[in-house]
């Protein structure tokens, strides 16, 4: 299980990295945390001509920055750093919680948020949170920088809109709803999700909920929003009947895979049950302050 030969390149700036990617025209891969890329190289599932190591670019890519209500997390910020960042736990608590479900300590010490988004695993926690919170993915290529809403970024299983000569520089989050919850079920501790749910919403004093966002992982070829559920919950009081109905609507946006972790049928069975329970727990918690 040793990789095929490749050239190892270590650019000194993002601009140089992009130029390198451009030069190799799709035959180069960006190496960030390496937690997914390196095993794929070893299994020879990928045989790039060059590996572009961006780990030296922490100055440009390794910061967590705030500007007003906006929070930008550099692509090279590692899970462990995000997990313990007071800025993230205060502004994006959903992300803090979600990260605890990723891999193990060693993987979190190396894996990066940008790498997670680029990997576009349908069960990926960071992708799910980005989607749920309406983040944009900041991308840079030979033509300059562009921001892609997370909803447009993921286009299939391990597939996204990133061009071969582009790379992710960061994740940008705006204002997020007041309350959130993250849920995950896997076949073993912190394994890839059979089902994951990310929810954010703001309860009003009158008992109604607003800005409702419900994201789902593991139930489609990419992380998806439960749009029908969101519509049903928006502006509504979250009583038992409403939640049961709303949770059932989540199936409209689900098209789960059959794989070694669970059958499609079982994922469809679990989805409304756990969604209802998580929503009910949020509603109960809001009631009690």
């Amino acid at each position, binding site marked *: 299980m*040793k990789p095929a030969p490749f050239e*190892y390149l270590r650019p000194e700036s993002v601009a140089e990295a992009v130029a390198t990617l451009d030069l190799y025209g799709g035959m180069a891969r960006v190496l960030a945390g390496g937690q997914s890329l390196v095993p794929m190289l*070893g299994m020879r599932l990928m045989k790039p001509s060059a590996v572009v190591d961006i780990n030296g670019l922490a100055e440009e890519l390794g910061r967590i920055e705030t500007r007003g209500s906006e929070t930008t997390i550099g692509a090279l910020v590692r899970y462990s750093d995000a997990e313990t960042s007071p800025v993230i736990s205060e502004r994006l608590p959903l992300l803090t919680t979600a990260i605890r479900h990723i891999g193990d*300590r*060693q*993987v979190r010490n*190396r894996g990066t948020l940008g790498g997670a988004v680029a990997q576009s695993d349908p069960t990926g926690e960071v992708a799910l949170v980005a989607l749920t919170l309406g983040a944009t993915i900041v991308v840079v290529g030979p033509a300059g920088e562009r921001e892609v809403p997370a909803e447009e970024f993921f286009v299939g299983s391990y597939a996204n809109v990133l061009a071969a000569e582009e790379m992710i520089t960061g994740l940008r989050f705006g204002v997020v709803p007041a309350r959130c919850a993250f849920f995950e079920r896997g076949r073993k501790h912190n394994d890839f999700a059979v089902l994951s749910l990310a929810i954010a919403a703001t309860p009003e004093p009158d008992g109604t909920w607003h800005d409702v966002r419900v994201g789902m992982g593991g139930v489609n070829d990419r992380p998806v929003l439960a749009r029908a559920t969101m519509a049903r919950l928006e502006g509504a009081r979250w009583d038992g009947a409403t939640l049961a109905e709303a949770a059932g609507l989540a199936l409209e946006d689900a098209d789960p895979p059959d794989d070694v972790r669970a059958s499609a049928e079982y994922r469809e069975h679990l989805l409304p049950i756990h969604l209802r329970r998580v929503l009910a727990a949020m509603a109960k918690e809001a009631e009690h302050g």
Partner: protein
Amino acid sequence: MDEAIEITVTVNGTVHREAVEPRMHAADFLRRVLGLTGTHVGCEQGVCGMCTVLLDGEAVKGCLLLAPQLDGHEVRTVESLAEGGEPAPLQQAFKEAHGLQCGFCTPGMLMTATALKESGRRLDREEIREEMSGVLCRCTGYEGIVNAVDAVINGGARTVAAEAGEEER
């Protein structure tokens, strides 16, 4: 293509300058180039944790790091733990708690636990299990390992009964 890369890396306090193939991972570098065979390789898929070493003080999986990436960094391996032939407290604790059997996972466990200890965090047993979950053991059922780590980071071994009490509160 595939040209050797010159790197300078400090391993267990010694500075090494070596030319490495890009397609060699860090665990193979430590084992085959430096002869530090205490770091084991179990899966090369980033799951089993046998190859865990400390990179600038943090536990990482050596099979998921390319050797050229070590350039300019500091690595610690299991060979660094005993000082002057005296076992480190963690090593002693593993021995006392029967935290090893075949010993193949032991270096990975020890390095993961070393980083945990150095972080200064105090953890309950569930948290210890979570922090140690990146290294698989097929021999011990983990009980002795958790006992050893608990003893070292919390200063005293606790029993299953104590663990039960903790879960209940």
